[in-house]
């Protein structure tokens, strides 16, 4: 078993903020140099040997040749510890960094009293059922905020009445729900006007009497589906766990003469390709899972003119929203009619915005890398990562119109958030004023602005509202900061990462890519300082 007290002493002796502990008995691991790194390198080997860590994924580094990243899941007597895990970076000679979260002092028994079927029955009584390939029930050890641990069943469940997918943690002994939160990665709602009318090329496949929205030019299969406003088709799809296996060739968008005029279908399909291209060209990444997993997009599920027939929750989720369902499946709402406003905004077809599409697909990148837990700070990091990467994609493909607004092409006027000036949307731009309430899954969208504002400052530089000055790398060098944040978030973060860990991870990434003392490292450090994350 890992000795937490010894680690705390070591950290103090080295005067490094290498280990921090909250109410939960979690060790935040940030080992990147010196004795601390040597200590952790040896501990990881011992934990692997004892079965307290297990290698879940090994990837070659796509940005620095010769390096390798291993994702290590924490186990307690063979049962996964929810949110526990480490990422080890190494080269041919040695371990270079260890980041992550490790829970200590776990003493729970791993024999459940309830059977999985009983858990499903309890969920069914609430109108929920396991959903998707990661639906469960899965037996895990859940760290609680009071520092204790509980053996639970984790279920990713779909609740039809609420039209929501939620992570539910059911006590394996009593059946009580110990924790629950929405697991739908989605854009916040707004309102929009018509199609933008911009010309673009679309990669399709000939078939049947014409062409279908099936991209065969890019390495992964990119398919975009047209549900043709058949409500039952959407219900059938959701009933089948939003599984891509339930999407068929008959659902693909079609066009007889290969001159496509369905703007929502076109944008969803084309921008999915752009997003794949952005990740490949900027970072060498091959799709969401770095192994060219298929990408599926769904459009035209509900007719926007029928919005009055639906509940506010459904409107916010399936009309004025885009969703990442998991397993490479995206959903793009058709928005609302031009004469309707939501919170003072018009909502256009959500796929009309490249940054919306890139945002949703970036949730997929997170799913296959850090797998950030979608609540509190880790959830905010998830949302921030998507906003940062989608902004990067916008500057890459639409440089003439790119800005630091999120979703401004679909939610007008103004979009949903501003990486440049979060306060103008009422969101915090400094850690000292972070949202700490229960709404928005603990502020995943709200607090993401603190992180994405740091990203903005690291690129553009300038003076933070509260006075700190950042020497940014400049817009011409934005690629450096994009690469730093990409690397930090995808290579070094673990599911329960905090803002502080994200700071350490991105600083390490800057050192890896551009050396200590580089302009990129300086910009990143100053930017995190400016937003109050230390």
């Amino acid at each position, binding site marked *: 078993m890992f000795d937490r007290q010894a680690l705390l002493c070591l950290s103090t002796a080295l005067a490094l903020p290498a280990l921090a502990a909250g109410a939960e008995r979690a060790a935040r691991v940030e080992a990147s140099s010196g004795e601390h790194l040597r200590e952790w390198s040896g501990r990881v080997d011992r934990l692997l040997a004892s079965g307290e860590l297990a290698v879940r994924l090994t990837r070659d580094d796509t940005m620095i040749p010769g390096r390798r990243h291993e994702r290590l899941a924490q186990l307690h007597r063979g049962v996964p510890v929810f949110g526990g895990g480490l990422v080890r970076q190494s080269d041919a000679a040695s371990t270079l960094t260890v980041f992550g979260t490790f829970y200590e002092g776990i003493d729970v028994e791993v024999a459940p009293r309830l059977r999985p079927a009983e858990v499903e029955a309890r969920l069914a009584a609430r109108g929920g059922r396991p959903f998707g390939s990661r639906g469960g029930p899965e037996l895990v050890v859940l760290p609680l905020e009071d520092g204790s641990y509980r053996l639970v069943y984790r279920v990713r469940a779909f609740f039809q009445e609420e039209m929501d997918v939620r992570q539910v943690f059911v006590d394996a002994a009593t059946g009580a729900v110990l924790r629950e939160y929405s697991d739908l990665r989605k854009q916040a709602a707004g309102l929009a006007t018509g199609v933008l009318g911009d010309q673009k*090329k679309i990669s399709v496949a000939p078939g049947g009497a014409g062409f279908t929205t099936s991209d065969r030019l*890019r390495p992964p299969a990119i398919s975009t589906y047209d549900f043709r406003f058949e409500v039952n088709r959407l219900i059938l799809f959701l009933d089948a766990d939003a599984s891509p296996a339930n999407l068929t060739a008959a659902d693909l968008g079609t066009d007889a003469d290969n001159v496509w005029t369905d703007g929502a279908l076109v944008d969803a399909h084309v921008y999915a390709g752009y997003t794949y291209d952005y990740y*490949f060209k900027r970072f060498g990444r091959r799709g969401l899972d770095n192994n060219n997993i298929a990408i599926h997009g769904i459009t035209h599920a509900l007719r926007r003119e029928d919005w009055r027939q639906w509940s506010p929750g459904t409107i916010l989720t399936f009309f004025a929203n885009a969703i990442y369902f998991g397993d490479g499946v995206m959903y793009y709402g058709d928005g609302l009619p031009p004469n309707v406003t939501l919170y003072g905004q018009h909502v256009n077809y959500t796929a009309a915005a490249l940054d919306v599409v890139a945002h949703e697909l970036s949730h997929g990148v997170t799913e296959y890398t850090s797998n950030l837990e979608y609540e509190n700070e880790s959830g905010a990091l998830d949302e921030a990562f998507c906003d940062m990467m989608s902004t990067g994609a916008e500057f890459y493909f639409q440089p003439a119109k790119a800005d630091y607004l999120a979703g401004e092409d679909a939610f007008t006027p103004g979009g949903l958030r501003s990486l440049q000036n979060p306060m103008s949307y009422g969101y915090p731009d400094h850690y000292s004023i972070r949202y700490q309430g229960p709404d928005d899954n603990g502020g995943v969208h709200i607090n993401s602005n603190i992180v994405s504002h740091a990203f903005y400052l690291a690129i553009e530089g300038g003076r933070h509202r509260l006075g700190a000055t950042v020497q940014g790398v400049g817009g011409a060098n934005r690629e450096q900061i994009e690469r730093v944040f990409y690397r930090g978030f995808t290579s070094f973060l673990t599911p329960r990462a905090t803002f502080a860990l994200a700071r350490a991870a991105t600083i390490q990434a800057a050192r890896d890519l551009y050396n200590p003392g580089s302009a990129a490292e300086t910009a990143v450090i100053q930017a995190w300082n400016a937003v109050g994350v230390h």
Partner: protein
Amino acid sequence: MTRLDRGVVLAALATAALAAFVPVARAQDPAAKPAKVPDRVRLVVNAAFWPTGRTYSDTQTFTEYAEQTTIHASYDAGSAFGPDLAAQVTLYRGLGLLVGYAQSNRDVTAKVDVSRPHPLYLNQPRTATAENAGYQLSESAVYLDVAYARPAGSLEWAVFAGVALFQVEADLLGKPTYTDEYPYDELVIASTPSNSVKDSPAGFNVGGRLDYRFGSSKRFGAGVQVLYSTASVKLKGTPESTQATFDAGGFSVGAGVRVYF
């Protein structure tokens, strides 16, 4: 009027002009002795050299990836060597008919410039260039001429002009192949295959010889020749190509042996 018709007319005009000139020339030389009637038939075998090269080009345009692909090929053909054969028959006072044949082969370098649309992005064409020195151009011509020959001691000069019927065969660029893979930002030409195409234009030729006859029998000789021939060639490498046009023939010099009987 077809190109063949025009060539025949030009050749006929040249021949008529020459035929008209010859009697006048004789009439203006009252001091000339009656010409010794030369042998009736002359066989001319020359090794000929065409010093001037030729350039021509074609352009293919067609739709690919929803935009226009443009493939421009520039061909540079060098000088040429080849045989030049003729038989000349005298029919009346040095005036007669000549039938000739010449053949030349040229090595051709094709420079290919491609602008090909990006398959994924609008208005972002990729370009690539390649050069292929393995192309060929061959020209053969049959001359049907009116000829006039006149001896001057052991020397003999002759002029001739008439129709030139060409057969031209050229390698023109077909469809290039590419190394073109995701992300498709760079285009590399993998091969530039050729299509061998032919044209048979008619034109005219005009030339002269100066020969020296050996020995007492004067049945053998050697001499030099200059010749100009031309015809307009139009070739099409692919259905999408513009025509590659150039003039066949050109100025040539030759030297060789003669046989008289």
